[in-house]
């Protein structure tokens, strides 16, 4: 992470002993640690992730196992979250649903991250005609009603999970590209990039090793903010019956099933809704905290 040395914060004047320099990352970590909400969010997310990873081992039942004595039962000792109308344990289904929802969230965000960062960095670095052309293309895509396209994609090409997150990722990279481009454009005028030219580094190396690492702050922030958007989109699609298919479950699908029976069995709506809302809360708090920590200027505006 040599590239960050130029952003070291100078020791305040007037003190007798020079304070040891703090790096941007140490400083940011400190600021994040001060933010109770963000730390809570981080802890909750770590727990959620652990639960999702460990689901096959810790879930009390298998996801399609039916308890025929207790169908549509409320929360009780045997089934903490109750059961659905087929007698399947709701806690288990929420756990498995979380696995799918988190997986889609992470995978789709990765797609948007890779595409957005590379596209934006290349456009910003190339500049001139290529940049204008590439950004005009982004402008056009921006104007498209993208939810509509995701719906069309999922309807017409089957409810394939991989395709689902590819489709979501493919429409979510635009803002990332814009952010990275802006950052790269201002960075490439800096002295240390000039120095790389003098050193004779190849353009690809400058881009990957010096420009992108220096844009990491905004990239991380925007990524944390993309995950909840993507998870919401998955839940939205599943809710419309276009996403994940039974007997698999995702939070969106569970919520949709809960809505159908909410009058008699409200817990079927409440537990999956809580799981989704808590996750979204945590992600948003963490994202806000990270923005304040890594990018103090944009936080103020």
């Amino acid at each position: 992470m040599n590239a960050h040395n130029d952003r070291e914060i100078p020791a305040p004047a007037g003190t007798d002993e020079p304070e040891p320099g703090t790096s941007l990352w140490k400083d940011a970590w400190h600021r994040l640690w001060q933010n109770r909400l963000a730390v809570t969010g981080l802890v909750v997310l770590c727990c959620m992730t652990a639960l999702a990873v460990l689901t096959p081992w810790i879930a009390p039942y298998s996801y399609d196992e039916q308890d025929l004595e207790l169908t549509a039962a409320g929360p009780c000792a045997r089934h903490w979250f109750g059961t659905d109308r087929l007698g399947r344990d709701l806690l288990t289904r929420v756990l498995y649903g979380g696995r799918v929802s988190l997986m889609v969230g992470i995978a789709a965000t990765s797609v948007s991250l890779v595409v957005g960062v590379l596209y934006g960095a290349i456009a910003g670095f190339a500049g001139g005609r290529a940049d204008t052309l590439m950004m005009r293309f982004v402008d056009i895509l921006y104007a498209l009603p993208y939810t509509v396209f995701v719906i069309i994609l999922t309807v017409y090409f089957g409810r394939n999970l991989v395709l689902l997150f590819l489709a979501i990722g493919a429409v979510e990279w635009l803002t990332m590209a814009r952010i990275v481009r802006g950052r790269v454009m201002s960075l490439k005028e800096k002295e240390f990039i000039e120095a790389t030219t003098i050193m004779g580094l190849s353009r690809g190396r400058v881009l990957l090793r010096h420009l992108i690492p220096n844009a990491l702050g905004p990239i991380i922030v925007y990524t944390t903010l993309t995950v909840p958007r993507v998870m919401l989109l998955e839940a939205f699609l599943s809710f419309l019956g276009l996403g994940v298919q039974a007997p698999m479950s995702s939070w969106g699908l569970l919520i949709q099933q809960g809505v159908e029976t909410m009058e008699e069995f409200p817990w079927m709506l409440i537990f999956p809704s809580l799981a989704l809302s808590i996750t979204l809360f945590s992600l948003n708090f963490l994202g806000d905290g990270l923005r304040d920590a890594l990018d103090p200027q944009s936080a103020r505006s």
Partner: protein
Amino acid sequence: MARFIGRRLLHFIPVLFVVVTLTFFLVRLAPGGPFDAEKARSEEALAQIERVYNLDAPLHRQYLDYLAGLIHGDLGPSLQKPERTVTEWILLRLPVSLELGVYALVVALGIGLTAGVIAALRPNTFTDHAPMSFAMVGICIPNFVLGPVLVLVFALWLGWFGVEGWGAASEKVLPSITLGATYAAYIARMTRGSMLEVLSQDFIRTARAKGLSEARVVLRHGLRGGLQPVVAFLGPAAAGLLSGSFVVERIFQVPGLGQEFVMAARNRDYTMVMGTVLFFAVLIMLFNLFVDIAQAWMDPRIRHERA
């Protein structure tokens, strides 16, 4: 100003072209067809139908024919519900969706602006934290959770509102709140941020110094600058209201355009999908244009920058 609008209208053309092309080939290249469900049909009858709807021509031919129709404003007949043309279907469903959208926008602006201004008046006190926590809840709870919960509490348990369709006024309250809530939350946060910035500026101090009432300072001088980011947000918000309406129309059984689109996509009603997508695209672009005009009108700096 006229030149500005003219140039922006010209930008519509490439966008619409991409929308038409992308939708057309996405829909057509996918497996399955609009008449798959009716298995009883003989080969011959199927061929007959395809001939009538020009579906037997080579794909590029169909595409060009569609474009030609489009230039004349002809969206074709609906394949699944041939009793009306696509244009007639859209015009039939549009008023309902439009009404829902306007109410939701009123909810969003009314609640959002009020909460944001109140929060900005005394930052870091209870009157700031309370509305802002509420806004965070609004952002994190998706409308397909909020809607059913509202129905459960206010319609089924308390019985205050009806929820079966879109007729009486009492049936319109919950859908509008559900659709508007998220945007109210975003607008509240944005208003707070920009109001805080504006209220700390010199001209506000001047306004106070010349003895204006606090209400006049905040509402007339403060809000004018504080509204800028909110106006800019209305563009993306319009697109969001649209996709939100797919869910809300379904939860509350509102016979609007969103439902029509989802149904058409599922039934592979090619012309209907194309028509609705195009219509949505035009709607979003027009809204963005209005937002830009409003911004240019409010702030001369933007006008000169973009001219």
